[in-house]
């Protein structure tokens, strides 16, 4: 286990401890890996698997379900243009066409300098400022084509780096400490959950065997 740097590894272990079952930390750990690397590298998925006691394929299997977990590299700035219904009514298709034309690529692509990835996004829940655009999941409001060009120029020049978090970083505020409601109580609850699950698994197995015997 060497892919995560010391700080990331320490935060990863804290995250796992927050959940009754380690695997629940899978998505938070993927976000954490993206914070370190900008995307979800195979080495990171292996390390996450080891932390959770599951296989790298299970990590990948979950990660590939989710749009925000990038198993391929993404640009330094992920620019998402919502084109769903409310934004469509506000001119989103026209804005996306403009963006594709000026950036010289289709949505889903990344500029050759690795700076901008353009995304044709589903509703981002910013429907009062259309067409809604986000950069690294931060809202920049409804944009005209002209304002979009300015945004791209600002991003390239690093003028938005104060408000837009670095590549891959989702949340800049960290949980201040772990669980506190009483270690004994949590331990007994987790044991009870494990017992209940084992009982259910036994019952399911017995039922399956009974059914198999009858057939």
């Amino acid at each position, binding site marked *: 286990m060497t892919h995560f740097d010391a700080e990331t590894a320490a935060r990863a272990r804290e995250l796992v401890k927050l*959940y009754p079952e380690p695997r*629940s930390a899978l998505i938070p750990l993927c976000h954490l890996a993206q914070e370190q690397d900008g995307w979800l590298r195979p080495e990171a998925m292996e390390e996450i698997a080891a932390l959770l006691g599951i296989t790298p394929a299970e990590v990948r299997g979950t990660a590939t379900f989710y749009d925000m977990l990038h198993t391929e590299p993404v640009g330094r700035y992920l620019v998402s243009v919502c084109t769903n219904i409310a934004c469509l009514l506000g001119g989103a298709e026209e804005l996306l066409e403009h963006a594709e034309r000026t950036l010289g690529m289709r949505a889903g692509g990344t500029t050759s300098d690795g700076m901008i990835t353009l995304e044709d996004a*589903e509703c981002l829940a910013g429907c*009062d400022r259309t067409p809604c655009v986000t950069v690294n999941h931060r809202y920049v409001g409804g944009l005209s084509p002209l304002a979009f060009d300015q945004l791209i120029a600002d991003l390239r020049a690093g003028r938005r780096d104060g408000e837009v978090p670095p590549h891959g970083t*989702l*949340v800049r505020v960290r949980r201040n400490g772990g*669980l*506190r409601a009483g270690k004994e109580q949590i331990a007994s609850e987790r044991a009870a959950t494990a017992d209940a699950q084992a009982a259910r698994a036994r019952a399911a197995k017995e039922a399956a065997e009974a059914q198999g015997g009858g057939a």
Partner: protein
Amino acid sequence: MAVTDAPRIVTARLGHDDSHTLERYLATGGYEGLRKALTMTPEAVAAEVDAASLLGRGGAGFPAGRKWSMLRKDPVTYLVVNGDESEPATFKDHLLIERDPHQLIEGVLIAAYALQVTQAFVYVRGEFALGLERVTQALNEAYDYGAAGTDIFGSGFSIDVVVHPGAGAYICGEETALLESLEGKRGFPRIKPPYFPAAVGLYGQPTVVNNVETMSNMPWIVLHGGEAFAGLGEGRSAGTRLFALSGHVRRPGTYEVEMVKTTFRDLVYAPVYGGGVLGDRKVKAIIPGGVSAPWFGPEQLDLPLGQDEVGNAGSMLGSGAITVMDSSTCMVRAAWRITKFFARESCGQCTPCREGSGWLERVLRRIEQGEGREEDVDLLLDVSDNIAPGLQWPPQQTTICVLGPSIPSSIHSAIDMFRDEFLLHVKEGRCPGG
């Protein structure tokens, strides 16, 4: 009456720029509901919520009190808050999460106490990055303030809350998919029965899953009593509710209005709400409850914003998202974009939804692009009928979850209301509107 004098229950603080801070929260009665709840028995708190007749604000509109009463007795139970707001044009929970995170957390703590749950999870849609920061910050402050953690406010009750980020998947708003996601898996809705997580939920344990707006109502309900809440609105639709108004209106936004006493027309035209249609054009259609809902025409503008009133008229209030489409809107394009959304977001487990959404999207696209055939219009209805047999409302279901039967809503509505427009698209090979 267009605008009632009902109190603002969940948006009272939003006039302040610092509504998300602990200072503002405490200065405006924050955590008083939790303090009061802790002096009551858990059963008494639950009884107030039951008396409030609060219908869940997520989309299905199931009574919150009844949901709580169904929680199976077990040594380990969980409370999970659904903050995965992703129904297109819905942006109300987003507002509550970003602008009043302490109110949400106080609601969670009150609910946890009433349910005697000692671990709660707040699942926040991954795209709400600022919201995740605000809720995490608020939770840190709540722990330091003594409202969360061990022996909260000296009551002897202990509770941990974990803020959990999603990662971009509409389907995780479906409560069993959300639980799968919270278990670190793909967001596949679970096969029913069991129908309710209250019987089998997170890690197989009894779990209550409540929406963000539902939770945000708790502090007010405890402070003012369930009766006071039930006294607002009418019939089954008690209290106030947030409506996210979008599309061709002058003032799109999220508005808290008294249920039933307010109509669609009020919301669209009242100066304090939508302020009228852009360019004074006419309403062509409205989507009354998120894109899963069948559409209404202008003749239904005077319907009250009530669960049963809208349900009896053949649609639903759903997620509280109301989208106005004016006379300039191309209905083929609107139906196509909504269907494209479902095609992208289908989890892929069930054939009618996975295959049907893709075929419907392609047929709609070819009509929109001027390559449609006249028989395509009935083909769309035929494929839709295979997903939701009979195309009735509420829909029949051929799939594990309700995403599938939501797909035909916009297609069926658009063709039903604007068949001529579809045929003109086909005939002229372009949008007749220009």
